[in-house]
């Protein structure tokens, strides 16, 4: 990561080396926003409400450097969904109790609803949108879902898929029980657990086959 300094209000940081706060970058360029949506209504420009002390930071999302204005209290799920247009990551509970927001941080599953965006600068963020190849070829775990008609309403699906992808990095050849344990931080209210497990086992099989090619 670049090591340029950011300005920290002096009165709040007396005696603390500024350098130590820095993980992001300030540079020129447009702030990321989804195609049709501006985060702040234009009428507000120049009249910012008190909570929105936003700071421009760079995030590594799905292999791309994304620059984005982020509030101090903003969660990663919010940044992904409302600032970067990555709405595949869902908010089911916003309290670390359902897993619909699961993303990988440096290959490890995390609840994006319960981590501050400012604390993931410099980490490799992978969301469901980043799984398939650019040519549209699905990730083997996604293909497993197609093969087995996994999930019902699928609101939990991206979270489950990200958990499975993360888990399979630590255990590529799990038993059904181990897979269930790996997926256990994800809630499915259609309660399609049996078919989900089957789809994820199929996904694991697809991955092993892909690696043997």
């Amino acid at each position: 990561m670049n090591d340029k300094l950011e300005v920290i209000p002096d009165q709040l940081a007396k005696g603390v080396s500024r350098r130590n706060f820095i993980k992001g970058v300030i540079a020129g360029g447009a702030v990321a926003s989804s195609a049709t949506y501006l985060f702040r209504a234009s009428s507000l420009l120049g009249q910012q409400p008190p909570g929105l002390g936003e700071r421009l930071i760079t995030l590594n999302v799905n292999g791309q450097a994304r620059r984005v204005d982020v509030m101090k209290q903003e969660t990663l799920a919010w940044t992904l969904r409302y600032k970067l247009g990555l709405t595949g990551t869902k908010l089911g509970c916003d309290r670390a109790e359902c897993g619909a927001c699961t993303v990988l941080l440096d290959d490890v599953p995390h609840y994006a609803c319960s981590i501050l965006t400012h604390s993931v600068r410099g980490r490799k963020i992978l969301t469901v949108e980043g799984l398939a190849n650019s040519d549209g070829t699905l990730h083997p775990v996604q293909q497993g879902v197609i093969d087995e008609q996994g999930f019902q309403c699928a609101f939990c699906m991206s979270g489950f898929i990200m958990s499975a992808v993360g888990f399979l990095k630590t255990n590529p050849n799990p038993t059904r029980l181990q897979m269930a344990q790996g997926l256990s931080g994800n809630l499915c209210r259609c309660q399609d657990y049996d078919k989900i497990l089957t789809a994820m086992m199929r996904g694991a099989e697809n991955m092993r086959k892909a690696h043997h090619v």
Partner: protein
Amino acid sequence: MSNSEWKPNQQKFGAKYKLIGKDYPTPDLYAKVTGKAKYAEDFRVDGMLFCKLLLSPVAHGRVKHLDVSKATAMPGVKAILTQDDLPAPADSVTDLGVTIKANPLGEKALTMEPLYHGEPVLAVAAVDEYTAAEAIEAIDIEFEPLPFAVDPLDTLRPGGPNPRLQGNVWVRPSMPQAKPGEKPPSPPVPHVGELKWTEADFAETKHGRLPLGKAQDEWVVGDLDAGFKEAALVLDETFVTPDTSHETLEPRTTLAYWQNGKVFVHMGTQSTVQTLASLGRWLNMDQNQIVLVSEYTGGGFGSKATGYIFAIIPALLSKKANAPVMMRISREEEHFIGRARPGFQGRMKVGFAKNGRITALDMFVICNNGPYDAVGDANTSGTIVSLLYQPLAMRWRGTTVLTNTPPRGAQSSPGGMQGIVIMETIVSKAARQLGLDQVDIRRINCPEGKAPVGPVRNGTRGHSTSAFLKEAFDRGSEQFRWKERTARPKRSGTKVRGVGVSSSCFVGGSIGYDGLFVIRPDGRIAIQSGVGNLGTESLHDVHRVVAEVLGVPWEKCDVTWGNTSKNLPWTCVSGGSQTTHAMTRAAHAAAIDGKQKLQEIAAKVLGGKPEQYEVGNERVFRKGGGRGMTLPQAAQHAIQLGGKYDGHEPPEDVNKFTKASIAALQGQGLLAAAKDKYPRDGQTFSYVACFAEVEVDVETGKYDITDYLAVADVGTVLHPKSLSGQILGRSILGIGHAIGQKWVFDPHYGHTISLRFHHTKPPTILDVPVNMQWAALDIPDPETPVGARGIGEPPVGGGCGAILNALSDALGDEIFRRAPVNLDTILTSLEAGRPTQDPLTAHI
């Protein structure tokens, strides 16, 4: 099971079909796995505002002071919506032209007299959620507290508090007589009245039995007294079932905006077409001025059957603020406004003959309704029990009581589940006392064929279209190795195991809806679907019938769904397990219409009579060889012929909603449209036999479910993989009621205190066996063309019943008298040697 095995289907289905009974990936799956599927909260509109709700901090009260000046003065706050901004509740008109008068006491989107803790009082729209939340906190509001009740028995007591100022029950005045030749009269508007039982009634509670006070409704079939006299065993048991939130994973987040005088509403709803009427009623607007977008819905389970009234909040705020408004509903808000299954306090007196046959059944239930419109669970519980156990004589009595708890709604197998669960524990106890096998006692009471159901109405009793539950028990007993398992030792170390079996059934289909598709000149079949996409896959599964009948590859079919501006046909509510049955019929009717039109076009163009032509392989051709034409050619001819062939002349009998869609689609190809007018003798139900094994640790009370099997009688199997998801998924919904799901209220303060998933306990993947089993009989229902019935709800009661029965098999009858059964109940009862939990006190 080896590591690499991913559980292929055990059975093969659809032997006589090309598509029906075969697996295929549903067309919405790619968007779902890539995160591209857009649920309501995934839409973004320029200048979108966010709204937050101010919720009632009291169980019942009245706003006595409200000052929003500080909030409105905050930069970024755009509009505030209160009850005063809501349109007057609108009357509605049924398909038969009957006007249903709006009830002034019905639920509102916002209210100044909240009737439960958590009820929305007002809404603020601001430039972002942060500002909206700050604005809520800047609002000065005071409530005058009013009397409240969170438990039905509290309000039924003499002198007990009333949850509403007017009383504690809905009173429905008797229906005026229809005059011959005139339009049926409007049913009178129900009002709230008072129902109190006597001290003498309540004496029963001292014995842990439900008081049998005056019931609101009742019916009787057969001679109850004679039935009890004949009985070799009579059991009289009280049992309580939990209130359980639907807890769809997608909260009922809604986005709304106005464009050219129309309001666009993006929301998660179970039904596409049928939600429009609700929105029209709530907004008091013409349906033509409303566009509903609901391509993907994150679960419904009954709670979003035809949408939800709170969807009008962002719509009205959007109008007021002149900007799009996103109302993101938090999980806590979802707990309050997201509906729940009503808990039952039930008591049944059941007489059994020596062979286990039920000679008499006296059923009494109280349904905890919450403060608003009455749910039908109490009534349905009686109907389902009467069908599933075929008692020789039966009385049902039911009372639906208002309380100051979040509003209830239909949840998968509404009423059926509660009735089955109360009954199942009694059947299990009877089998033990009579020395009968648990499968045998259920088999002997099984409905079969055209089995009678419910009360006598207009001189006759209704009956089922078909029932093959006995066959399901036979298949299940074998597959589950029932005899072998029941013969095994029960106790080892600190573990005791038990096996349980349960009957289950629920409504499985409705009739009379429309099918609509266009065979286009490019050879593709454009199927219009008004079915909601809540994940059951019936949205796509039912339309496979069109391709099957026409002999067209499924890959040539495009299903359009999820947006009411896209010319959809009149469609059933996607709820109550209706869709598979209702819409395969409609699809079949439309496919037959399309086939006939193809034959007629061929005859007109190529000579001969229509019946001399066959349809298949994307062609219509002369039987036994000879001339024919491709479907694209036929579509071109249809456009040239016009009239009924390309939609210029719609069928007379389809719904006006379908007619409007046909008018918009006319001239695009061969248009097939038809109403389902197939005969049906009886009411459609589906059935499931459920089996479970549990292992209980008697030192901690903790138990695991070690095995589960459900065998379904759902008629013809349409799509095995989606069926497996429904059978096992809905089984787990039922299992959740046995192992932990609940609501908890503080009775002194009237607050819901179970606000988080770790309080309400929806089952996790590690709470159920990792390898659950299912099977389907695949016997076509004789009263519907494809033979398929619905399956969403029937397994729920059985899932719960099988676990409870396995527990009592392991631990005996004297452990629990309510569900869910948790380790605290088990441990204290084992310790005391008797049930320690008062069945009538609320969940803790």
